[in-house]
């Protein structure tokens, strides 16, 4: 249905100035966003931040208060869901319990001038595609959660929609199945080349599956970027805190390119912040270097290991130091390194905080 001609390079979906009010409460505030054909985009954020609300606005299920949604060059802002072009999978799957799996998948294919035989062929093809051939005669309640999820997916893509919307499709499953299905869903999306939006509150899910991630908080977009960008260069302290683990240390600017952390001065990009400004210095535990560090290097200070936490493939060390005062840094050390350097609690070592991995945020960060 969305066959409107589209210039190459134009976004497939364009959302501008979207706001959604529930009474006096603004669930979405001035959301603008572009999504390109074939992209896999994740809406990521804590529970209650408005991800589902945004997805439902895109689907037309709960239309926004103000703002526009354009799909394939057409303004669909006010259209009801039935006049839009999308397939959707809900967290609950919403499979029709009284219909067999095959009937569920075929539901959208009916009344489309398709012959019975064609429908049957297409259903078999779809069941094959999601890896559940020969399950067509069962009822949804006879399938496992992961299988139901795949049937819901097959039903949604049966009619070849231009846009696939997934609302926390994996969060009702156990961890093992979830990891497995991440790959399945992602490779299916690649093969079909279908533009996909997935809502999730699980950062790992978003980082492994998405081409681009939209990080949201309190109804606003915090950052849009590829998983690597989001992880490496979190644009706000919220993103830095929400994704991965981050050391946050209070500090202040000491001239261009310099910040102080306790008595320690660090060289880093201060991004034009004024002298004396209070900032939060952020650095990821895995970016802190303790191997081959010499006292002459940049951003080096002596520290004591005051705690070690074994976390499987690596060890998280808590580093205290006189120069940093109250603030303690966490550093992730590989098992290999631990073996070679035989680091133990109470040891003293030289710590380097690489300049390129330091991020500076204005003001102080409140930890929940």
């Amino acid at each position, binding site marked *: 249905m969305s066959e409107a001609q589209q210039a190459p390079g134009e976004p497939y979906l364009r959302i501008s100035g979207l706001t959604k009010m529930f009474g006096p409460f603004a669930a979405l505030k001035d959301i603008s966003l572009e999504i390109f054909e074939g992209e896999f985009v994740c809406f990521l954020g804590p529970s209650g931040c408005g991800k589902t609300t945004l997805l439902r606005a895109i689907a037309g299920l709960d239309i926004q208060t103000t703002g526009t949604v354009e799909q394939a060059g057409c303004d669909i802002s006010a259209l009801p869901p039935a*006049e839009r072009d999308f397939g959707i999978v809900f967290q609950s799957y919403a499979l029709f319990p009284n219909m067999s799996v095959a009937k569920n998948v075929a539901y959208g294919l009916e009344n489309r001038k398709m012959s019975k035989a064609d429908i049957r062929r297409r259903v078999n093809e779809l069941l094959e595609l999601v890896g559940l051939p020969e399950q067509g005669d069962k009822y949804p309640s006879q399938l496992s959660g992961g299988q139901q999820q795949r049937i819901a997916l097959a039903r949604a893509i049966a009619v070849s929609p231009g846009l696939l919307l997934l609302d926390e499709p994996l969060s009702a499953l156990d961890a093992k199945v979830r990891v497995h299905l991440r790959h399945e869903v992602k490779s299916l999306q690649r093969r079909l080349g279908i533009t996909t939006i997935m809502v999730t509150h699980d950062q790992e899910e978003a980082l492994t599956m998405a081409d681009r991630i939209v990080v949201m908080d309190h109804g606003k977009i915090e950052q849009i970027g590829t998983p690597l960008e989001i992880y490496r260069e979190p644009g706000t302290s919220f993103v830095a805190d929400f994704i991965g683990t981050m050391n946050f240390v209070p500090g202040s600017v000491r001239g261009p390119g310099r910040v102080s952390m306790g008595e320690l001065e660090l060289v880093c990009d201060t991004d034009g912040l004024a002298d004396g400004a209070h900032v939060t210095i952020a650095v990821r535990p895995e970016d802190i270097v303790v191997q081959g560090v010499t006292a002459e290097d940049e951003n080096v200070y002596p520290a004591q290991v005051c705690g070690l936490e074994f976390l499987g493939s690596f060890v998280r060390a808590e580093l205290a130091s006189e120069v940093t005062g109250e603030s303690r840094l966490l550093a992730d050390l590989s098992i290999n390194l631990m073996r070679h350097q035989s680091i133990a609690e109470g040891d003293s070592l030289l710590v380097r905080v690489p300049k390129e991995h330091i991020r500076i945020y204005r003001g102080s960060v409140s930890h929940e």
Partner: protein
Amino acid sequence: MSRAAAEVLSAPIVKPKASRDDRMMRAFMGVIGVYLLVSLALPLYVMLSKSLEDHDGAFVGIANYIEYFSTPALAYSINNSLYIATVTTVITVVLAFTFAYALTRSCIPFKGLFKSITMIPILVPSLLPGIALVYLFGNQGLITGLLMGNSIYGPIGIVIAEVFFTLPHAIIIIITSLSIADSRLYEAAISLRASKLRIFFTVTIPGCRYGLISAAFVVFTLAITDFGAPKVIGGDFNVLATDIYKQVIGQQNFEMGAVVSVVLLIPAVLAFMVDRVVQRKQVALLSARAVPLEPQPKRGFDLVMLGYVVLVSIFLIGMLAVCQYAALVKFYPYDLSLGLHNYRFDVMDGGGWDAYYNSIKMALYTAFFGTIVVFSGAYLVEKGRGFRHGRAAFQFLAMMPMAVPGLVLGLAYIFFFNHPDNPLGFLYHTMAILVISTITHFYTVSHLTALTALKQLDAEFEAVASSLKQPFYKTFVRVTVPVCLPAILDISIYLFVNAMTTVSAVIFLYGPDTNLASVAVLNMDDAGDIAPAAAMGMMIFYTAAGVRVLHYFGSRWLERRTQAWRVR
């Protein structure tokens, strides 16, 4: 003002476009809404305005009310009604609580059987316990001596009949609230070494307080609005309900009937509103996670409870047995030989066997059309998109019938449908108006049953269907109805049984060709043919009970057929 709110004001607000489905759903809802308007709101409005008019239709303000309150014989009925309702409420709630307690907290055998027995009164018109009391305690009754000189005709008789009539309603409500108890609370209390009595008053009673309050208000409303029991056994003890009947049927004083109706409407509406608030709180309790309580056998306690439950069951079955005996006895108390003499309804006033067949027809129509209307209406309210005010208005209309006593509804129909200018006037005295009034009278409970079932469905079925471009009616027929079939059957059975037993609304509406069994019971009793009245009452009981049994097996069959896909 927040920044976002300011932005909303500056940017144009998106006006959602209604889809074809939306427009169709709204149209259907409009149709059912108009039905409720015509069958409920308009008649009530006309009745209210009638109470402010004189015989000739001139507006007289509250003159009728002044006359009413200055006529001691009439105003005294208010006291009588309140008295009867209050005493009934206290007795019924205590009896029902003990019964429900026995069924949920003791280890007595045959709980299912006892629970079914308590449902007996639902299957008979409220006239029937009155008739049984006449045979038991009347002037030549079987055990009149037990009353020690008191007369059964009056408050004693009315209260006993009302307790019989209201008991099942209270028991259902209290059982529900007792079965949501959390065993962890009891374990905590026991570990604190609280005494049994203390646990009872600090854990048990507070735990089911909403159930008790709700039951009290339901019983109070039923008792104050009931017409059958005071009509048969009230003697010259007047209550509001019988006053309406007498004003309208006896004296043809419709305006005064309207005034009494308004007076009767007040406690009913108040009780209804309190009950709604309480029900909402109870629902909130229900959704809380609890570990269900498993009663432990305690010999002495279980024996006492069993004795009590048997006693109540004997009371309930006994009333029916007396009626059946009375129906079979040739000429009580002079010729006690048994026979079917009293079943020759055709030689008596009251409508004969035709009335019985009419009742069955009426009940079938009511169950069939009523279920379709009620379930569709509930579906449209629950699953419709947008159209918030329309849906809220519909919901309000659907809740109203619960607060309107049957007699009041019936009288309102006289005013509305009998009005010379009403194009729907041709409906008066027809089967159609009996069916309409009965559907409307019992609308609310059916509507709530349907809503409960619909709320249990996944909320996204409709969203999925519209994303797949399938019309809503297809999903309704192929998914919603099959999944809700048990609830749909419950609604139809509820409507059928109530249509068989109701007297109050239809008493003003039946015509020469549309006499009903329940009305025949009343009229035969009025004419002194008490034995045939009992016989006809028992026919109603057997029919309703038979349908219930059918329903039971039907549901079992359905359960087996659909257990492949039903999630247990």
